[in-house]
Every structure is written in C-alpha cells, then in structure tokens.
C-alpha cells in the first residue's frame, strides 16, 4: 500500500503562483536615504529577467531584501509564491543566489566550500556538488584552494553554489563580473540553458548588451524606483524611433523638415540625416518625411528605421540622460 502526502495549502498556493518574484510597495531606508522606494516588481516564472539600473540605484539592496539579508521597512514580497519573510526558509530552499562579489573560505577548496553550503541544505544537495562543479566548468580545479581562484572562477563557484539546491529561481547579481569573453559566452549559455529547464533567472547587471541577449524581460530601477518593466520587445517598441536618411543636400533637407510639424530631433552627419522621433510616433510620419523631401526636390537614396537598443533606451529612461549636470 502506498500513500501520497499532499502538500499543505500554502505550498499548493505557492506552486500555483505565476510569479517567481512579486513585491508590492517594498521599501528599504538607510536613515534618510531611501534605497528601495515602494517597488512593485513582478517577475514571471520560467524566464530570464534582467534587473537594470545605474550604480547606486538600489539593485543590490532590493536583492538583499528579497533574500532576507536585510529587512524591509515596508511592503510585501513573495518568492516562488511563498510570502517572505513569513515562509522565507521554504522559499529560499528553492532559490539560489549570488549577491555582490561571491566570496568563500579561501583556505578551503571549492569542493569543501560547497560541502559546507550543501550541508545547510537538504541531504540531496550533497549529491549535486559534483554535477554543479561540472556544469560551471570547475571540476578540474575543485580541489584547489579558493584563495588561488581567479575572480571569474569564484563567479563560477558562486553559480555552482546556487545550483546545489536545484533551484527554481536563481538571482544572480552581476554574474559576468570578472569573466573573460569566453567565460561570458559560457555564462550566457548556462543562463539560457537554466531557463530552458524551466527555471527563472533574475539577472542584475550593468552589461546592457548581455542582458539584451540573455533576458526576455527587464525592469529598470533608478533612485530606488522601478520606472519601467516588461518584455524587452514591448519596451523597445515603445521607445523613441530612430530614422537614418541618406539623401542629396542634407543641409537643405534639414531646413525643409524643420519647417514641418513632425516633431523630430534632426542631426546632420556624414551618412546623411539622423532623425529621432518621439515615443509613440505613428509610422505614417516616415512616409510623410519621404514625401516632404521628394516634393522639395531632394533625392532620397535610403530611408532606414533604426531600432533602438536596450542601451539607448536605458539611457533615455533613466536619469543618466537629460539630467542636469
């Protein structure tokens, strides 16, 4: 006879939650400084989620609050559907995280450090030490002292530590730090493979190009507030529109376009005109620009829409662009 133990109600509710990370009004203050200001963050399960922000924006503080490394002053949060801090232990048993630079006991080997961390988790974690080291490419150096590891190797060891708990959610704070280009490629590959296994990866990084290549969705944080979040494709679709126009007489073309009401910022460059149209500008405006130029006697050789990059969009929406100097 076999029996089946049903998970308790809260476990089932947690499993049903569609959000890997959910915060509402989350606030953390350091004296008068508000590091995390009423953050509303929703990270869907099973995706790679980028968490972006300038230095000092409160990225690491939010991660520390989520992981129980520091307490929140206000707001609610849950990880994998488990309310935190009430069910923090249950939530973190299914979470792997690197916060800041990964540091370990330098006098111990990588394997011994993982043994310590595995001992703090469920018994099965001990069996995952070898596979984790294999997966991050550290198996051949596993018995070397960590004090002899490079920064990149410690990053890999940090990821291996994350994998000990067979996590459903990984929170990686700047995991590309210290990695050479090949290492970054491998890390990106690993993150994508983790997502392909159904895990959720939250990637905090300042390497916008890496985030754009790795993540499905992002949140932009600035001065403790989340100012945008959503799928990258949707966010960039709403970004300002770039237009490159190769034509004869670019200076006269600029004068002609300045006389219209299309509302574009126009610059004359070596390749012709560069136009930046405001967010939400209808595509018909592009045809209107072409008509104005042709009717003005300008020969238009090429008219190309330039897709905004995550980097340019990031700079637009954060205080880094247009902020008073």
């Amino acid at each position, binding site marked *: 006879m076999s029996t089946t133990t049903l998970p308790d109600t809260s476990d089932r509710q947690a499993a049903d939650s569609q959000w890997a990370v959910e915060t509402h009004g989350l606030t953390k203050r350091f004296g008068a400084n508000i590091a995390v200001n009423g953050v509303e963050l929703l990270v869907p399960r099973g995706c790679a989620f980028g968490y972006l922000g300038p230095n000092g924006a409160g990225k690491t503080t939010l991660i*520390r609050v989520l*992981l*129980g*490394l*520091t*307490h929140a002053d206000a707001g609610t949060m849950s990880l994998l559907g488990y309310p935190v801090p009430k069910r*923090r*232990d*249950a*939530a*973190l*048993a299914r*979470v*792997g*995280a690197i*916060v*800041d*630079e*990964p*540091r*370990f*006991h*330098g*006098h*111990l080997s990588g394997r*011994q*450090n993982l*043994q*310590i*961390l595995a*001992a*703090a*988790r469920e018994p099965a974690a001990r069996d995952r030490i070898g596979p984790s080291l294999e997966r991050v490419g550290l198996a051949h150096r596993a018995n070397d002292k960590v004090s002899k590891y490079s920064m990149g190797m410690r990053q890999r060891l940090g990821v291996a*530590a994350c994998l*000990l*708990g067979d996590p459903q959610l990984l929170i990686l704070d700047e995991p590309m730090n210290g990695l050479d280009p090949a290492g970054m490629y491998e890390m990106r590959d690993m993150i994508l493979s983790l997502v392909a296994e159904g895990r959720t990866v939250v990637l905090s990084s300042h390497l916008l190009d890496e985030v754009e290549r790795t993540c499905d969705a992002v949140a932009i944080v600035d001065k403790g507030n989340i100012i945008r979040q959503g799928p990258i494709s949707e966010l960039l679709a709403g970004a300002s529109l770039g237009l490159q126009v190769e034509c004869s007489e670019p200076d006269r073309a600029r004068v002609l376009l300045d006389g219209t009401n299309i509302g574009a910022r126009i610059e004359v460059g070596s390749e012709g005109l560069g136009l930046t149209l405001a967010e939400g500008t209808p595509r018909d405006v592009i045809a209107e620009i072409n008509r104005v130029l042709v009717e003005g006697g300008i020969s238009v050789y090429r008219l190309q829409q330039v897709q905004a990059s995550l980097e340019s969009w990031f700079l637009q929406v954060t205080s880094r662009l247009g902020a008073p100097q």
Partner: protein
Amino acid sequence: MIATRFMELRKRRGLMIALVLVNIGLPTIFLAVRLVAHAVAPKSYGPAGGYDIFTNLVAGVMYVFGFIVAATLGCAAGSVDLTEGMFRHLVVTGRSRLAIYLARIPAGLAIVVPLVAVGFTIVCTVCVAAAPTKLNYQGVTLPAGLSRSGFLAWAGDHPVEVLCDLPGPVPANLPCPGPNGGGVPSGTPGEPSPAVLKSLAIQNAARIYPGYAATFLSPSNSLMIYSGLWIELEAVIGFIVGLGLGSLMGQRTVPVVLMIVLELILTPIFSTAVIAHLINFQRGVVGLAMAHLEPGGLPLAFGGDNRGTGISHLVPESTAIAVVVILAWLVGWTALGAWRMMTRDT
C-alpha cells in the same frame, strides 16, 4: 552541518598549530626537557613529574593559556563567516540563522575539548610516572604516595624517625639521634619498649597524615580528574564567550584582544582586590567564579599560592553563586551572539 563547520575550523592551519602548541606542545616540551635533564644529571635536576610540576602546569599554564587559545578559536568561529563572505551564502540556503550559529558550538568544542584532554593526559601521565619515589617531608625522607594504612604501617616500622623527626611530642626518655633528639642517651632507664614506640609512632603518623597527604608527590586520581574537568570547563567558557563576542562584533582581532585583557589583566585584579562599590560586579567575573571552583590541591589561580596556609585572597563568593555566574556567562554570550547573527544585515 556540524561536521562541515568542524572541517572548516580544523583546516585553519595557523590556528590549529597555535592550539596544539599551547595545549599539547608547551607542556610536552617542558616535561621532555625535565625528563632528559633528570636522566642526565639526577642530582642537579629533580624528577620530571610529581605533584608540584602537575599543579604548576595545570594552574599556571594549561588553565590560562587554554582559555586564551580556546577564546581565539571561538572568536574566529564567530566571525569568519562574516569576514570571509560565507554568511550570505549560508543565509541564502534558507537554513535558519540560529541553526547556523549553534552549529559552531559543537564543532568548536569538538576541537577544543579533545586537545585540552590530550595535553592534560600527557601532563598526568608524566607527573605520575616520573614522580619522585621519596618525599622529603619536614626534613625527613619518607616514601611517597602512601595511603593512610600504608603510611601507618611504615610509621610502625620506623618509630624512631616518626617520633624524633616528624612533628609531634617526643616521648620522655626516648634516645633521639640528631638535632631533633631529646638528648637522652641510648640505654637510659625508663626508655619506652619497642611495642610502645611503635604504638606511639602510629598514633603520631595518624595525626600528621593529612599534612603528608597534602604534599603528596604524585597527584591523586581525584585531583587529576577534578583538575581535568576544571581546565576543560575553562576552555569551554573561553570558546563560548569568544564565539559570542566574535559574532557580536563581527570581527576577530578586537575580540581576541579583549579576551586576553579579560583573562590576564581584569580577572586577576577583580579576583583579589576588594572594591567595595564594585563587589557585586567583581563577583560576576567568570574568572573569579572559576577560581572558586578550583580543585583544593592546586595553587589558587589569581589568588596567590595558599597551599599550606589555608588562606584565600580571592574576593569571597559562594560556590552556588560561582556556578550561577558561569552558567550565566555561557548562556548569556550564546544568546548575545545568536541574537546578533539573527538580526545582522549582511
């Protein structure tokens, strides 16, 4: 988890060398030098073992330095997770911070207690095996290590030495040789018969046996057991307090310095100098409480040598209060360290 915490501490080579050196190395080297010196020149150098060597090593070296190295290990155990960045990794596993802290206690004690035991066993072994075979007691050479019945039997066999040379009344008309003699020549009329002399010697031996036993050359089993437990307790206190203080301060160096100051400076002062306004504070010093629990046959820690005088210079404190103080230190510092690790932002 305890096993991995034990492994983490055991792999700290410098710390382990210091622990082994102080707890085992120092007494071993000291005893080895005395063994060699006595073997080479027995008239110039006394036996390597014996009661005096035992008591001085236990109360003078193992007690104080055992505390300091145990405290050093405790401070390291309480702070290295923080300073070396492992605490975050451990917290993120979901294991409770209290469990993470408490796992350090058995792990550290599993190092400290056996080391102290090994060092102490070496001291006991040498002090018993290499103890003198004769005892010079008040100018008389006596066999060492006799039980009460053995001592009385020996007295019956040596009545003249017992009655003439050892403390006690000298019977009238007893021809004692040497400077302690009664000055009566042998063959004096009225000289006590051998049976009377034997009886008087046994009576005198029974009277002086406590004094003889107090200066026994080979430490008794009970003294060794009690002394071993006493220095183990001191080492445990050193580790627990160091662990709590290291966790509380989040670093190792300053807590180690504070522990050394406590043991070498504050405790001797507060244990012997009666300061009227601070008397209750003084009674709360764990070193004073430990001194009150010291085995009777040892020279008083921090209170001067009271052997033979029966006078203690320690600030007075009942045994019950001493036990309460020790328990309070153990529980209090554990609670403080655990509280700090549970509430610490990291």
